[in-house]
């Protein structure tokens, strides 16, 4: 069952590479949140009520409802363009994401560690690498935020792979990161949108000497 979610997650990554529409990004992030919940839920050995509530808030509530809702608000507030043109053509992005996935699967195959759930590494690595690629590839701030969230999801999965024995501390860190990071980044993004009249990153060049 767990593999199914991993496969779905891999497909969401491909769709991230494929799509250029801002709305789609937000939607995909929300889907990823649900997939993450599925992963956690199906890998839980015994359900402790506290852990369960925590995971429910973190994945479903934060990752797939609050954050996308907030991003949608930011998107509407700033009147972002429907399409964010990446600097590398989508065609190559799709190839790159395929290669990343293959690499990440092969890497995970080579990890021999009985303590870890190496299955999560398969997409976790790909997610982190792809998140960076996404940030580099896109020229605008909103997409950068999306890329950051993709990285965060990857990290969340690494913590699933590793943090079998210490879920709370690790999850707390991720949660704090998301809530603070996104809310504050989002507030700043709103301001950037108001101040710069454009969401293109190449507007932000006044600092260079």
């Amino acid at each position: 069952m767990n593999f199914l979610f991993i496969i779905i997650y891999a497909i969401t990554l491909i769709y991230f590479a494929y799509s250029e529409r801002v709305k789609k990004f937000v939607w995909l992030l929300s889907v990823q949140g649900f997939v993450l919940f599925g992963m956690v839920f199906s890998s839980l050995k015994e359900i402790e009520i506290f852990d369960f509530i925590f995971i429910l808030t973190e994945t479903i509530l934060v990752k797939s409802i609050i954050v996308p809702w907030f991003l949608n608000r930011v998107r509407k507030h700033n009147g972002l363009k429907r399409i964010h043109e990446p600097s590398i053509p989508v065609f190559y992005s799709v190839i790159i994401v395929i290669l990343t996935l293959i690499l990440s699967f092969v890497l995970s195959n080579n990890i021999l560690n009985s303590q870890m759930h190496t299955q999560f590494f398969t997409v976790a690595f790909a997610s982190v690498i792809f998140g960076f690629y996404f940030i580099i590839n896109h020229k605008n701030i909103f997409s950068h935020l999306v890329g950051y969230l993709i990285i965060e999801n990857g990290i969340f999965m690494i913590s699933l792979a590793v943090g079998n024995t210490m879920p709370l501390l690790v999850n707390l860190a991720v949660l704090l990161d998301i809530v603070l990071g996104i809310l504050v980044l989002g507030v700043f993004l709103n301001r950037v949108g108001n101040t710069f009249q454009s969401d293109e990153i190449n507007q932000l060049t006044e600092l260079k000497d």
Partner: protein
Amino acid sequence: MISLLLILLSSLFFVGIIIQTKAKIAARKMPSIFQPLSDVIRLFKKGAIYSSTTSIIFRAAPIVYFSSVLIAALFIPFGGNVGLLSFYGDFVFFAYLLAIGKFLMIIAAMDTGSGFEGMGANREALYSMLVEPAFFILAGSIALFTNNVSFQELFSNLHIVSSLSYSISVASIYVLIYIALVENSRMPVDDPKTHLELTMVHEVMVLDNSGFDLALIHIATWLKFAIYGSILANFLIKNTWSIYEQIGVYFVIQIAFAIIVGILESFKARNKMSKNPQWIIMLSAIAVVSFLTALIVAHKIILN
């Protein structure tokens, strides 16, 4: 033998159903389901006209195209029944057989020397090239999944049991449907109804063909659709069923496939031309994911 008969039979009404579906959705009067058939018969009655700039290639291409598709149809198994031709690794041969026909059509289009046809041939060549890896990766992942490399054995050994194998078959059917659309130059890659030369892909390639040749090309297109429909049907038909059940399900699947194509073409605008390559490579990407899944299922990738 039975599969060839079924393919021939279903090819007769396939395009008719697509047209009827689209007409129904558009709230228009439906043409007869055999309208395409009578169109072709009318074309057969006409003689072909050849441009003075064309050579033998242009004349040979439709026949080669048609026969390549017809031979390809011989490979398709049906349920427990082997296709007329079957050997080790025949799906590779199958794919290249189709490619040969297409290749000849492409150089025939170049042969006319028309700017439009060159453009169309160029596009068609690109799309076929891009869709090829998707097909092979898909076939490869099913081969890996079933440990077999011929059409007949692929399908007869396909046991869909776990959730992962379900996901493989869902992905495979999804990819196959779209491969069929690309190979047959339908929406979203190409619009068979368009009258605009500049946006055409396949249509502009056969712009100079007429009469008998055009009829052959049309029939080859139907056959291709029916072949892909049969492959889809093979995914879902179980060997344990009786032959009548199998035939019944086969037709249901063919009709459903045609209706799906009709619906897809009605409710979606076609892709921007520059988006086509990335759209097609997407299919390969999904095929890769199903390949990776197959690797997991086959315990080639060991994860805990």
